[in-house]
């Protein structure tokens, strides 16, 4: 038997109008952590879907040789039967079921169809310990936060005795702390039980930290596989990914900051499910025209909740405080009012709240600003096509045409559609919640450029992000939030990561 546990040879996969993979070869050694990187739409998820039988045998060309035998998976059960487990880019847990139930879903501890709950719970507790979830086994999955949800997915894979674990952007939605935990866990599992991992990621520093080998895809083709035993440089990977040198990660800019355009005063928000609990506590912030203001905080610091409550009370109950735009107090009781007052909110949760997946690109882009293309009563669909094309080009949305359904786009390209939609609504105040999550380095640069341009046009840009380098790279000023409070404000030029972290830690320790 060869040293390879998996060999995928000459895989070609076509969708109507696109060749997502052409002649890709991909080999994974037994017992390694193998990273798969590439731009948005390069075909990473598609390759893994081929491997796990989601795209069944016959719908692609080429061979899959796993543990020395040729495999023809017809569905995901076939591949699971061989010990291959996949954790998708978008999590697939059942929110109302408990952790234990989710771990054993589709793989129940049962006899004659009757579930043995004692056995289930016991096994679940063990698995949870192994992956490091400190929660009750009967906690509902919707209440435990993304970081832990990701761990539940891993526990689920372990319960199936998997030998090859595929993770599609596992850390995209996680903060640094949770990411570190997850990566450590992968390393441990890899060492202790010899589990082979394939990890797709856009966070190159993580890739370099944990991977043994790195394969780079570009435009559906394998560029090369690098050995990471003595660390490869990020620049090297980037060059392979985008096909050229990328000298700067962040575009240059000279801020042109004007008057205060938007203010949040004494803003307090309560949990809609528990009106006693305050999620945002007396926040005060101001935003100047032409300025990019970062909002940094750990998971659960209330950033998203703050943003959504401001955006026409899309979240929260018993909201009090004042909003001031251009010196005038405004009340935004619903999202329609927020939009018509020039606010836009790019959600962090694009799958469930960002897009209408069954509709096409142009349709989604115009959705929040249909008035712009409506004359009398009639929505001008031709104008819409033109607008769709314009944004498709400007943002480099990788797609067959503006008529492609957004559900068929790669994750990163979906994000570009969401951004296009809000930019098309030409807001004065643009709130971006994790705008570059799951976006490749090249495209990030494009998006930063667009954000900077919007600022140049005199808009207030508010950028919520968990990525410190990004916050430090493009904002002009930043607020730090912790446990629902604004605990610090600094000029980005004077801020360091250490300052920011110590501000957070001190504010927690202060009480």
């Amino acid at each position, binding site marked *: 038997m060869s040293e390879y546990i998996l060999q995928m040879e000459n895989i070609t996969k076509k969708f*109507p109008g696109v060749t997502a993979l052409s002649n890709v070869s991909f080999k994974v050694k037994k017992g390694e952590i193998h990273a798969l990187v590439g731009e948005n739409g390069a075909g990473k998820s598609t390759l893994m879907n081929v491997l796990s039988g989601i795209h069944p045998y016959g719908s692609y060309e080429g061979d899959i040789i796993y543990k020395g035998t040729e495999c023809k998976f017809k569905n995901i059960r076939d591949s699971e039967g061989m010990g291959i487990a996949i954790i998708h880019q978008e999590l697939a847990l059942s929110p109302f079921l408990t952790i234990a139930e989710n771990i054993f879903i589709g793989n129940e501890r049962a006899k004659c169809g009757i579930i043995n709950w004692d056995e289930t719970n016991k096994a679940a507790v063990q698995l949870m310990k192994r992956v490091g979830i400190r929660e009750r086994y009967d906690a509902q999955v919707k209440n435990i936060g993304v970081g832990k949800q990701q761990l539940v997915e891993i526990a689920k894979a372990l319960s199936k005795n998997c030998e090859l674990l595929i993770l599609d952007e596992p850390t995209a939605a996680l903060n640094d702390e949770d990411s570190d935990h997850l990566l450590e866990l992968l390393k441990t599992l890899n060492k202790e039980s010899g589990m082979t991992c394939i990890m797709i990621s856009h966070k190159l520093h993580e890739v370099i930290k944990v991977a043994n080998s790195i394969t780079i895809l570009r435009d559906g083709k394998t560029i090369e596989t690098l050995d990471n035993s003595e660390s490869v440089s990020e620049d090297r990977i980037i060059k392979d990914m985008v096909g050229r040198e990328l000298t700067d990660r962040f575009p240059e800019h000279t801020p042109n900051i004007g008057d205060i355009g938007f203010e949040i005063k004494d803003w307090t928000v309560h949990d809609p499910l528990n009106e006693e609990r305050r999620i945002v506590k007396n926040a005060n912030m101001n935003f100047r025209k032409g300025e990019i203001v970062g909002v940094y905080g750990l998971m659960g610091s209330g950033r998203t909740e703050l943003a959504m409550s401001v955006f026409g009370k*899309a979240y929260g109950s018993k909201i009090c405080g004042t909003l001031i735009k251009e010196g005038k107090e405004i009340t935004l009781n619903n*999202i*329609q009012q927020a*939009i018509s007052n020039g606010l836009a909110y790019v959600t962090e949760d694009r799958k*469930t709240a960002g897009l209408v997946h069954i509709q096409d690109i142009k349709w989604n882009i115009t*959705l929040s600003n249909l008035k712009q293309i409506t004359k009398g009563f*009639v*929505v001008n669909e031709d104008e819409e*096509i033109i607008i769709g094309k314009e944004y498709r080009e400007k943002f480099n949305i990788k797609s067959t045409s503006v008529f492609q359904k957004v559900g068929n786009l790669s994750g990163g390209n979906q994000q570009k559609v969401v951004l296009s939609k809000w930019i098309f609504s030409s807001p004065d105040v643009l709130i971006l919640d994790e705008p570059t999550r799951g976006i490749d380095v090249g495209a990030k640069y494009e998006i930063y450029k667009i954000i900077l341009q919007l600022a140049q046009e005199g808009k207030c840009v508010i950028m919520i992000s968990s990525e410190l380098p990004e916050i430090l790279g493009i904002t002009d000023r930043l607020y730090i939030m912790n446990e629902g409070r604004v605990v610090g404000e600094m000029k980005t030029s004077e801020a360091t990561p250490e300052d920011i972290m110590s501000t957070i830690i001190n504010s927690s320790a202060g009480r």
Partner: protein
Amino acid sequence: MSKVKEFVNRNTRQYGMIIALLIIMIFFGIITEGKIIWPRNISMLVRQNAYVLILAIGMMFCILTGGNIDLSVGSLVALVSAMSGMMTTTLGLPPWLSIIIGILTGLLAGIWQGFWIAFVKVPPFITTLAGMLVFRGLNNIILNGKTLPLSGLYVTIGTGSVPDIAPNTFRDFLHIGNLLNLQNPPKFLNGTMLIVGFVLSVIYVLFMFLSRQRKKKRGYEVAPLPMVIIKAALIFIVINIFSYWLAMDEGLPIMLILVAILFVTYSFIATKTILGRHLYAMGGNAKAAELSGVNTKKMMFLAYANMGFLSSIAAIVTAGRMMAASPNVGVNFEMDAIGSCFIGGASAYGGVGTIWGAIVGAFIMGVMNNGMSIIGLNVFLQSVAKGLVVLFAVAFDMYSKSKSRFC
């Protein structure tokens, strides 16, 4: 060429349905020995199924909001016809007034249901289940088990045709009809119908070309010319054949005008207006729609209020055709309407479906209804057949969708 292909691809679903309708027509054409396409029967097809067409339009809107259905439709038809009938028969109001009162009753009932669904968030299934019981009960209370005869305007709407403005003008065309070897060959052709059909078809074709021209001038993308010509020719021919057919019978039914107006209006709303957009957005992903500024409560309310309104129109039409308001009218109407929408390609999850589809679906239902009645199939078997067709239509849809996803 690839342009043509792309265009066809984008519209396959529409053509698929028409082909299904044609196949069913031909099928019944054969087993009824051509009876189903007799002018008389085509005219009946329109009249007898107008209520399904009207209800299917409204039901499509409800389904688009997120796969929600309205179960109360049949009962509401009964309530409205009872209410309206009582006004004219018992209280002696003039028919036009009692018809308006009937329509207001339906609208009110729709608003009532819309309120509970949109603002109190009682699931539509439950709200309309309650409505189904309440409205049927009210009908029985009003009618007290009796049937009220109706006359005048009701009957005109239900069974009447537009008078012939040019009798005996088109005698020369008669022999085309004679070629068909019908059992009772037509003796005259209805001038109104022929003129209306011809004028409409010309206007439609002109409109198609003018709008293409205009789009082109402004630099918008247009459908390839051969496609447009073929489409225009087909539409021209179909409209004229259809009007010729009806001209051989009684001419232009008033009901057909009503249905056509509703069809055009609601198609326009669904495809061309912001309201329509928001409806599709909501059904496609309610949360995303809401965050994009769609007022989902309002949409829900409007869909159900409108369903009440269209139910009342269907009620007047039905009462007119039966010339009575009776206690058991409208039973299973909701099922016909829901079935039409799903045959016509609506998604059970919402966000997908067209008014046009609902209409074709309703015609498929109608052809089956009439065809099976003509061959004298027993009603229970008819019900079995209709049920299976709905099932297979949706199954086929699902199958072809899963195919296209993985090819």
